[in-house]
């Protein structure tokens, strides 16, 4: 049993200058065989292992990660959490996740700094107004908190927004989900890793998958840089590299991997106490607890695995930020980075079995996977353990691209890309 983090353990460890904290997770050598191997040690993969161990009582699990845990998109996103999606299937999926977020720190005994500061989406033209109103109604029918705000109400909720009618894309209104907010992204990966490790999951870092071995239609194991690992079930949560893993197994997925950029400013005093997103001008912004503005930009339209991105994307985003918030005109940006996001044609994820027995994919989260981390892990664990989907992720199967039953969230659900 790991020592519980508490005010008392903090005081106790202060006496030894915080040099004797127990390691949050081990650094094991891979065993020869596991019951289940999860590929990808980001939030989704670690959460999957955690729920497999906790809810399905499977302990012989490994998570293999080519770099370090949480070093991919988990550590590269803008940490926005919300569930105001248009379609019933998406609303169910993302609100399931949001409900887990609300008690996650207590469950993991790890402060994920979940802050329900609200997410506001802006409307800039008549079509935006209609779409946002429609989505607000759809959200409320699904039991998700959503309100439509007039321009004056937007200004009242976030006074620094420029609501002048004279700007290029004037603010005509907006929606607000108050239960939405942000969380500390690293802490989510670390909290799940610590919890999974405690239940006996092996978290194997610096272990890149090089091949997937199968006998006909049955999974036999995987080749890694730390040797061959035998297993009958593989769950892939490899985000931007999902297609690379799929190609190893001889599968094709309906994904395109593109760079998505974000940037942070120098830290300043609290100025914006919510998250504001705008689809039309493509900029979103919040403020971290350190005081930095966290700004999300768009994706490039070409496939790339470079974790960079084009400057014209950043330029467009900052143009929009400056017009909406003239107060930021002299801010300096500290850092800019890219993450590789795997985008589905319908901008909805895939949590699904495949045509190969024992191979499961959790991918296609595109530009909005962070918010879904707990729910995604829970439902993917269910899918792997029972070899069939939970009712909340049944719509998000691979077969929808054959049947045509897509969950088309592109543009419909405040997806900014």
């Amino acid at each position, binding site marked *: 049993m790991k020592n519980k983090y508490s005010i008392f353990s903090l005081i106790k460890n202060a006496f030894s200058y915080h040099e004797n904290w127990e390691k949050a997770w081990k650094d094991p050598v891979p065993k020869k065989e596991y019951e289940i191997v999860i590929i990808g040690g980001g939030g989704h993969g670690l959460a999957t292992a955690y729920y497999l161990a906790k809810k399905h009582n499977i302990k012989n699990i490994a998570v293999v990660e080519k770099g370090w845990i949480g070093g991919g998109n988990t550590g590269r996103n803008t940490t926005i959490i919300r569930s105001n999606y248009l379609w019933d299937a998406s609303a169910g999926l993302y609100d399931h996740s949001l409900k887990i977020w609300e008690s996650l720190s207590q469950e993991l005994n790890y402060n994920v700094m979940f802050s329900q500061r609200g997410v506001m989406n802006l409307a800039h033209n008549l079509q935006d107004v209609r779409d946002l109103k429609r989505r607000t109604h759809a959200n409320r029918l699904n039991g998700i908190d959503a309100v439509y705000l007039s321009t004056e109400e937007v200004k009242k909720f976030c006074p620094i927004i420029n609501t002048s009618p004279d700007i290029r894309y004037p603010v005509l209104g907006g929606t607000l989900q108050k239960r939405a907010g942000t969380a500390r992204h690293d802490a989510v990966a670390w909290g799940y890793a610590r919890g999974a490790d405690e239940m006996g999951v092996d978290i194997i870092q610096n272990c890149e998958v090089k091949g997937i071995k199968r006998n006909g239609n049955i999974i036999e194991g995987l080749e890694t840089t730390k040797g061959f690992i035998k297993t009958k079930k593989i769950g892939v949560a490899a985000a931007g590299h999902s297609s*690379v893993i799929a190609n190893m197994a001889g599968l094709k997925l309906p994904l395109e991997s593109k760079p998505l950029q974000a940037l942070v400013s120098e830290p300043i005093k609290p100025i914006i106490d919510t998250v504001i997103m705008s689809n039309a001008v493509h900029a979103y912004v919040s403020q971290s607890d350190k005081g930095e503005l966290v700004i999300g930009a768009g994706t490039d339209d070409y496939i790339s695995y470079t974790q960079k991105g084009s400057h014209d994307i950043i330029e467009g985003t900052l143009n929009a930020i400056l017009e909406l918030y003239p107060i930021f005109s002299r801010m300096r940006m500290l850092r800019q980075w890219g993450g590789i996001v795997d985008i589905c044609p319908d901008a909805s994820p895939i949590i699904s079995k495949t045509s190969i027995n024992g191979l499961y994919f959790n991918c296609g989260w595109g530009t909005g996977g962070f918010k879904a981390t707990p729910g995604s892990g829970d439902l993917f664990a269910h899918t792997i353990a029972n070899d069939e989907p939970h009712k909340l992720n049944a719509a998000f199967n691979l077969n929808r691209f054959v049947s045509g039953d897509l969950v088309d969230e592109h543009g419909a659900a405040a997806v900014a890309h």
Partner: protein
Amino acid sequence: MFVINCPYCGEREQSEFKAGGEAHIVRPKQPTELSDDEWAEYLFMRKNIKGIQFERWNHIHGCRKWFNMIRDTSNDEIKAVYKMGDEPPKI
């Protein structure tokens, strides 16, 4: 961010172009005879390669012509550019 050598206009910044995805996906001659699986394969399934990829681009802020490109998606290095209908060059 990179520079693309448009086969019609010469070297221009990438921001003048629109990426059109994987190249050499042939439209089925008889779409009505396809099974749902084959239709999904044509419409949605992509190689999404990390490495050398064949893809289509359009010079939308220039000549507006489509052309093909061979590019390494792991480092954005362009290996070759060739016109629509041409055989891909050996690289």
